[in-house]
């Protein structure tokens, strides 16, 4: 069914490009005033983001074609390299602290966030391990968890809970697709609920945190600040929004509007319609990706494609959920759209790998 695969790959690319273009446009709109105030230029983010996009497209075309990526050895190497980088980032002098997390390695004018790379390497490496496994006997294996928790621990040390959470969810998604028994997930859910209740009961301040999340207005200048500023962008916009470029919240009311909270500026300027289109585009991306996974010719391709797409989709859900007040604030970028080199390049690399793995072999 090569032609059908071609159709799904086309759909995937359309969604990806659409979201990327939206990203470029709104990094400009949302970030222009912030850039002017903090860097004295109207479009510092746009220029940089265009450069990052160039890098992203180059990475994509490389990853989309490079045959070496289809061998497990490459991924074993990449996995351990990313672990090394994660360890290096914790070393003072190499790692750079930003926003309270030591997540960055500075390379001259550029900076790299190893955890982004780790997410992909861990997912593909584990996809290989799972696809090599004999189908007999229990699927659950301590080795899988070892490969998962080694990077998780290192990421938590930064600390970067957002990335860690996304990686855990993505890998559990991978385990699920690979046939981990349902009872494992039932156990996971029960353990999660019990653990959560236990945590809340053991320390009443956590209950207050939850209340603060449910009612951000109780502390509008403290813990509820970002959530409220985001709602003040989205809410008044209504169906059509204030029109492109007419956001009010981007005038320093919402901090760093080009980053994690870019979706609220989109919703403010383009209204519910614009916001819904973005969500729909992510839906198309996930749909096309899963179709490609379904039709892959190899187990490992199926696992990798589904998990990488799932990771992007889940990250998008997490970001929009936070921005719209559905979820408590966690620092997660919106794939393709938020400003940031590593995020954009790595997401495009993921798409490149999907492209590569979805080829007939």
């Amino acid at each position, binding site marked *: *069914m090569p032609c059908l695969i071609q159709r799904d790959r086309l759909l995937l690319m359309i969604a990806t490009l659409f979201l990327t273009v939206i990203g470029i446009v709104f990094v400009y709109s949302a970030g222009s*005033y912030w850039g002017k*105030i903090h860097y004295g230029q109207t479009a510092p983010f746009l220029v940089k983001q265009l450069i990052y996009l160039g890098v992203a497209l180059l990475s994509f075309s490389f990853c989309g074609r490079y045959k070496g990526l289809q061998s497990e050895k490459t991924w074993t190497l990449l996995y351990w390299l990313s672990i090394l980088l994660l360890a290096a980032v914790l070393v003072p002098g190499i790692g750079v602290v930003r926003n309270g997390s030591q997540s960055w390695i500075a390379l001259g004018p550029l900076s790299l966030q190893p955890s982004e790379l780790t997410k992909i390497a861990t997912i593909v490496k584990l996809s290989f391990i799972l696809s090599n496994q004999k189908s007999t006997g229990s699927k659950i294996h301590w080795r899988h968890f070892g490969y998962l928790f080694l990077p998780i621990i290192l990421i938590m040390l930064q600390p970067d809970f957002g990335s860690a959470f996304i990686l855990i969810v993505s890998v559990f*998604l991978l385990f*699920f*697709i*690979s*046939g981990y028994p349902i009872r494992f997930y039932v156990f996971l859910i029960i353990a999660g609920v019990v653990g959560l209740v236990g945590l809340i009961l053991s320390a009443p301040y956590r209950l207050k945190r939850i209340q603060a999340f449910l009612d951000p207005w109780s502390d509008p200048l403290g813990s509820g600040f970002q959530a*409220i*500023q985001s*709602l*003040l*962008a*989205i*809410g*008044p*916009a*209504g*169906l059509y929004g204030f029109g492109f470029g007419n956001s*009010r*919240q981007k*005038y*320093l*009311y919402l901090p760093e509007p080009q980053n994690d909270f870019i979706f609220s500026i989109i*919703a403010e300027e383009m*209204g*519910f319609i614009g*916001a*819904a289109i973005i*969500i*729909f585009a*992510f*839906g198309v991306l*996930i*749909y096309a990706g*899963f179709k490609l*996974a*379904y*039709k*892959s*010719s*190899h*187990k490992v*391709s*199926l696992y990798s494609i*589904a998990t990488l797409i*799932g990771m992007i*989709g889940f990250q998008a*859900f997490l970001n*929009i*959920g936070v921005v*719209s*007040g*559905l979820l408590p604030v966690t620092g997660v970028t919106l794939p393709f759209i938020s400003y940031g080199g590593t995020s954009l390049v790595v997401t495009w690399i993921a798409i490149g790998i999907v492209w590569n793995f979805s080829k007939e072999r």
Partner: protein
Amino acid sequence: MWVTKQVSVRLKFVMMIFICLGCLLIGKLITVQFFQHDFLTKKAEENWDREVPMKSLRGNIVDRSGKLLVGNRLAPTLYFMPAQNREPEKVAAQLAPMLQMDEKKLEEQLKKKVTIIKIAPEGKNISYELAEKIQKLQIAGLYTGLDYVRDYPYGVLLSRLLGFTGSDMQGLAGLEYQYNDLLLGKQSAIRLFTDAKGANLPHVEDGWREGQDGATLELTIDVDVQKVIERELAQAMEKYEADQAIGIAMNPKTGEILGLASFPTYNPTEYQKVDSKIYNRNLPVWMTYEPGSTFKIITLSAALEENVVDLEKDQFFDPGYANVEGATLRCWKREGHGQETFLEVVENSCNPGFIELGRRVGPTKLQQYIRDFGFGQVTGSNMAGESTGILFSPKNYGPVEHATTSFGQGISVTPIQQVQAVSAAVNGGKLMTPYIVKKVINSENGKTLKTYEPTLKRQVIRPETSAKVRNALESVVANGSGRGAYQDHLRIGGKTGTAQKAENGRYKSGEYIVSFIGFAPADDPKVVVYVAVDNPKHGSQFGGVIAAPIVGQIIEDIHTTVGITDRKEQMEKEYRWGDVEKVRVPNLVGKTKEEITELLYPFRIEWHGEGEKIASQLPKADAQIVKDGTIHVYLEKQ
């Protein structure tokens, strides 16, 4: 293609979950963007608002004829937005000398890390001329807000009723406080479109939020009446070195309060200088005390309404005391009034006589009348801080309590309750709710927003009974204890009151509240005037001596204002030793100089002009003057 059944099912399941998550997001967006749209828009506007307030005018307070009692005076205030000017030092150097303030201090103020700074107190409510000068400097980020301050054309007049406003024009006491919401209006403002730090956004035009001026409050007060009352009370305060003084004038037929005064008074622009008791207590409605003899009007009305006495025919013997259940209740006159008619009982304010009247009415009925006349509950005059007073509860109401209540002791009432009750007793029996606000007017277009109409609470006694009460009270002024209030041709009726002050349930020796409640004219009352002087320290402490002349003088001075015309039939004042004897002025106009000299009038005559025939005279014919008084006569040549 490699896919197993299990993997296929699980992929579809995950896809389903993603669809659910997408729906969750869409649902949340719908909630936020549609259901919470209005709420969030309001919040966002609050968040964006960077406003330079342009105070809308606080409503005026005017008297019943529209004379301004409280108005506003323009007093601009300076505001500074630090984000729009990076040289606060320069601004401070320019402004400090103009505002006569320390440059360093101003600089410190201007460097505050806030969006908008109100330069206070030196830059608050500055003169208009200074504001203009400062505007000419064209300092970036400096704005002049149009502020107003309260202005009182009559100074201290009515201050304890009107109250005052605080630094931001919020009503803090009196009517200013009570009607604050109406008077305040909605503030206008320049809406600055700025970023979160207050810097101007060059491409967005500043907006304007239209406010609304506060409503004008038209009172029932008549400034001319008020002036007379305050003048008289001020004199009394000084003359008797009294602690406090209270005065009320009310139209008995409508309940409109024409004048309402409390002393000592204060200047509303300097309220910080006086004890808060002075501005927080509007004495005519707040203060409660034993009414004393003025309360006998209630007993009298009840007795007449119940038809248990014929004032002129029934006789009473007052030995100077009455025995009730073993208790001896004394008359104010130790030796007693002896044999007297009940009209004389009223004229003399004879306590044993009123105990008898109370006995004839009966305890249950008298209690009912007292409550029907409005005692024991607030009058509903809509003035803040009104007290209810204290009556005997029915179970504590024994014969002794009944007896003392009959002549106004052992209970506690407010001045406004007394005015309300006496108005009903003399106006034909209608208990009218006293009120102070006549109209609420939209200041911008002059339209009346609300009119307060006279409110009838109930008919307490019949009109015929009321006429008898008026007659008896006129006779109190003409022949009895209220003679000090007598004014020729005005037919004043009234009743004195003298009550010992009580504190913590015990009488304070030597401290009295002397009062008089009067009305005029007796045939058709147009005004009820009540005056009480608290603890006068000179002269004999009797209402008849101190308060009655004040009420008489007030009624004399306001009678044209309240529409009282001279009366022909009046009770002539009975002359008593010590009274200044007055005689009527004969008509001299038209007579010749010779004729007059022959007649030997008991007056001194001062001649004016030249001629033989008299053209006019002052006072006019039939007016009363003191014996040996002077008549000015104007001659004309024939």
